[in-house]
């Protein structure tokens, strides 16, 4: 018998939280992306867990789509980082605070 779904859900929530905390505290845009990936993984874990408990494949299908989105986001995001880096030679998000007020 597998462990209760709740356990995995809690792990998912924690993973989501860790990702969010990282997003708030890391300055490197690249690491922030990774944190978003962590959060999306938390989502995937949650989907799969619910898919199991509901005995419904739709959750797994959703995971599939989330993965695609993650891939697409990373592609674009890294493109932006590259573009920004060319201009500023830095990936620190804190240095980008000229627009404010």
């Amino acid at each position: 018998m597998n462990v209760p779904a709740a356990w995995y859900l809690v792990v998912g929530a924690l993973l989501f939280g860790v990702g969010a905390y990282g997003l708030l505290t890391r300055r490197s845009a690249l690491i922030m992306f990774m944190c978003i990936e962590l959060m999306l993984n938390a989502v995937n874990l949650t989907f799969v867990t619910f898919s199991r408990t509901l005995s419904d494949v739709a959750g797994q299908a959703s995971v599939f789509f989330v993965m695609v989105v993650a891939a697409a986001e990373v592609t674009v995001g890294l493109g932006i980082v590259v573009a920004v880096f060319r201009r500023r030679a830095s990936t620190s998000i804190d240095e980008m605070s000229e627009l404010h007020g």
Partner: protein
Amino acid sequence: MTLHVPSIHYLALLPIFIFFGAALVLMVASALSAKNFSPRLATSTTVLASVAVLVVTIAQWSYVAHHGATTTIAHALVFDDFSILATAVIAASMLLSALVAHDWAIRERVVGVDYHVLALAASAGAMVMAQANDLVVIFLGLEMLSLGLYVLVAFDRHRAASSEAALKYFLLGGFASAIFVYGAALVYGATGSTNVSSIAYFLGQNILLRPGLLYAGGALLLIGFAFKVAAVPFHAWSPDVYQGAPTPVTGFMASIVKVGAFAALIRVLLSALGTQMDTWRPILWALIALTCLLGAVVALVQRDLKRLLAYSSINQAGFMLLGVWSANVRGVAGTMFYVATYAPVVIATFAIVTVVGGVGDEHHSIEHYRGLARRQPWLGAALAVLLLSQLGAPLTVGFYAKYAVLVAALDAGGGALALIALLSAAIAAYFYLRFALTLYEESDHDDASRVAVPRASVVVIAVGVIVAVLFGLWPGPLATWAQHATLLFLP
């Protein structure tokens, strides 16, 4: 095992096909063409696609009128007046912003079809959001829209602000997307489906004694939407991004993103979670109050017009949310009316901002507008009218937009909220007018600093002004359409 391919209603899909098809055609054509692709041809394609979609929406409207609303492709999409109206507004906004972008691209010497490809694809994403009947599909539409926008915001590589804005937008947008899709996962867990109709059906059939999971999911979905429509405190990205993005893109964001986001928001909150109204309305109440007030107040001290308009747009978003909060037929119609009229007005406003921005897209300080109406009376007057409409001055369409949502809010017992919104409108009136006055003040600029208004921009500005004034005098048909659009999916 046979695969039961779901039935596909091609008429319903046609707008998305046309937009994405046009994007593909442009991409392929530009790849194949030997020399640089003519900007005029690219714009024409986009305009043609938009017109085609508008025509299609007319056909769709009449189809739905005769055959009723349906869902299609295994209930992934809805085909009803609501989505059709939203689609039409998106198409019209696309048309206008393409014209603005055309002039901008020529001035900034931006080559290629990329802008149009991305804008069309992003608009297709917005249409997906407007038609989606499934949380995952909404998520995908949202991402199509967002990814396109991230790139568009970063488009102007001559301005540092552009890339800064893009990065901020991307990071925060990615964060918001994650939150949104986490919410979708939780709702899926709570209801067993990601399909809006199924969720609504399930919640209609079952009373959740312990709805914590659903609430958590719903809240996260709401936050995801709040980010997209820039509701306080999830708004912070928008002033920076509005300011940093190339100006035509700002207009695009202020219009099309709002249409898509509000269409999906309404569907999720009112269709899927309509039964949970008592839970989400207080949250929305607080968001609206904060959004209206913060948008109006902070705009008071802005010196950059694009930032000012960003805060103004935050304030406007508060009003649009007011219709959602009302959660009644009037409210939905009001929000649709609001969004539909705000879109052309705001695009026209940004068309003027684009024009005045000049080569390099950098003259956006309010100081730069001093005396504009003296140098160029028609341009200045047009901007004044557009501002008045956003302010909600009577005899402009903005008045009826505010009126429509306030009526709904009061009908739903939101007297206090309506008063807060009205108060914010009074504050907003202050900065709109002060700015409008700047246009008419004397300035050091001489006539040499007149700006050229290219032909396409003239069209856009004229359309914006006509919408503002014409519907301001006679809002009848549009109000009726907006009301009609709500009939088929709400009780």
